[in-house]
């Protein structure tokens, strides 16, 4: 699923490792999310949305809208 994680991360000047630490996941997980090849579970999507202070649909795009 397409998403704006990389942009949001760059805006805050965070590395993949920084974001990984904040979400308590591995750096590989951040990479898999950013490439859009791994879709997060609903709890992780909420955690990401809360961290960036944006609604889930502003971060993830399922291409249906």
């Amino acid at each position: 699923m397409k998403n704006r994680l990389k942009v949001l991360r760059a805006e805050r000047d965070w590395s993949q490792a920084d974001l990984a630490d904040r979400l308590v996941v591995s750096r590989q997980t951040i990479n898999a999310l950013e490439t859009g090849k791994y879709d997060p579970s609903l709890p992780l999507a909420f955690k990401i949305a809360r961290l960036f202070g944006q609604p889930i649909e502003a971060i993830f795009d399922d291409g249906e809208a």
Partner: protein
Amino acid sequence: MANARSASPATRRYLARFIPLMIVYAIVIFGVSVAFNRLQPVGPLAWALAIVPALPILGVIAVMGLYLREEADEFQRAVLIESMLWGIGLTLAGSTVWGLLEFYVDAPRVPVFWAFPAFCGAMGLAQPFVRRRYL
């Protein structure tokens, strides 16, 4: 299951459980082999003795299950589950093909003991390919 640099608490717990079990297994399998050679047990004692080395291996299977339950990183968990499915699929495929060769063309018998090591090997081989799909 993951490299040490980024080892999660669940991975560290997995290793802390797995390594002692494998040490116990190595000692027990050696002890049981010696016992069978020297004492040549028969009947229920032989059956009981033969099963003893299985106990740490059953422990390893339980430890793998605990890891899946305790790993908080859902992506790492997903990679491992997918690798396990490949391990199961390859082991079942291999045992079906080899089993038929044993039935019909007298291929050498492979002890069923090797099912779990084959599963672990296939799972290990599958893991880098599974990971590569998410790069």
